[in-house]
């Protein structure tokens, strides 16, 4: 399965992501800039913030209460498309998902 990131410089990067792997872990493994994943996916930081492209937003599930609160701590201000990518696990439904790395 694949995910594609639009990077701060406007280029895109596509990588293979195994089912069940979080998109934060996939970002770190592929050295996606600005995605640090400092807390390992435990909702204690906001360093894996992404914008989910509109076509995929309906498929990534709901934002839980703690994720919602942590999204107030992102570096680039949140929008309706904001998610912490540690909370999105790759699945057949998300094969081909497109994300944008926020940039100041």
């Amino acid at each position, binding site marked *: 399965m694949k995910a594609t990131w639009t990077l701060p410089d406007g280029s895109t990067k596509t990588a293979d992501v195994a089912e069940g792997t979080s998109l934060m872990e996939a970002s770190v493994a592929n050295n996606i800039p600005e995605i640090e994943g400092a807390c*390992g996916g435990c909702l*204690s930081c906001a360093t894996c913030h992404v914008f989910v492209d509109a076509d995929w937003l309906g498929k990534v599930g709901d934002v839980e209460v703690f994720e919602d609160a942590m999204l107030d701590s992102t*570096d680039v201000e949140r929008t309706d498309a904001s998610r912490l990518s540690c909370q999105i696990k790759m699945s057949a439904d998300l094969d081909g998902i497109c994300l944008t790395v926020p940039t100041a």
Partner: protein
Amino acid sequence: MTVWVPDDDGHADLSAHDSFERGVPHNTFARMRRDAPVCWTDYAQGQGFWSITRNADIARLNRQTDLLSSAQGIRIEDQTPEEVIARRTFQETDGKEHMATRIKVAKAFSKPVIAGFEDQIRELCVEILDDALPQGTFDATKLIARELPMRMLGRILGTPDEDLPWLVEKGDALIANTDPDFTDHVLDKMTTDEFRLMPFNSPAGAELYAYAKDLMARKNAAGDTNGILHLILQPGPDGSVISDAEFRNFFCLLVAAGNDTTRYSIAAGLQAMCHQPELLGQMQQGEIWNTAPDEIIRWATPALYFRRTAMRDFELHDQMIKQGDKVVYWFASGNRDEDAFDDPFRVDLARSPNKHLSFGQGGPHVCLGMWLARLEVRVLFEELSKRIKGIEAAGPHKFLRSNFVGGIKSLPVTVQLF
């Protein structure tokens, strides 16, 4: 030139604070990473513990809080359940309970909010350096490294500047509770258990409790209710409120942990500049500021370890860890792991990626003050490198007597000004 050379025989007793008095016993950690990545240490003053020393193992275990819990204590010293409750902060909680407290202050310590302090930090750095540098030869821990986080602490807590030296002295007595230079009540030499319900088992805890109470009364009377200390008292998203004891302990945590870690990061950076003269030139060229703070903080590793407790039996690298066993993540070792870093005993200000663990990365307890630490370190070294053309050691430096806090407590240097 290689920076300081560890001189332990490869078999240092990690439970003994004396083993860290000449710096981290890195020969011992190197042996453990190679031959015994899950290694048992007996502990004369209580139950022994397992040491985890490889970077990848620490990073992988740190998030598994259902397997390795913080709720029974995060230091090697044993605590009774009564002591754990009395001395607890959100550091000693797991899962949703931890999140519910942390979320209240997360935004106040977030990258964009902290970035708003940059001008204030720069002003403080200029003041501090203008006082220290003209002295030529001086103790850089005392005059530079100690000053910046202390003065920033006042801005974060909203305390009067004249209170800060007292607060920091008490904070040091807590966190450096194993070094006779910082406390009259050296933890492993105390003959009383009178203070066991106080933070860090220290009588300074009682004084800080009283200060916090007065401070809040003064703030409330003045209508000043917007700071960090009021945020932590708000109900969380799930409606939970922290207890009085947890509030007082949170205050002590900010005063102690939020202060000495940045101090010792700055001190380690200054010490590295003395032994790797090329670092100053790299700073002056200015291309390394995105990566330099993390490398300096890797080099320093002020929190040498945190401890967890196994919630069930499990096997790791052929060792059987039993339910209830203490498991210690040695960040000091993970930050010198040859499998995670090229040339780990060299400071490389351009190092990227930098999988250091100084902030406890990879788990829910990742340092709350991470962005503040990075910003203070960057601005301090930016301003320093504009002002000097050289810095060298003016005598041997001294380490804190502690297996928990890695710090250079005195660092004589000579600087040459432009």
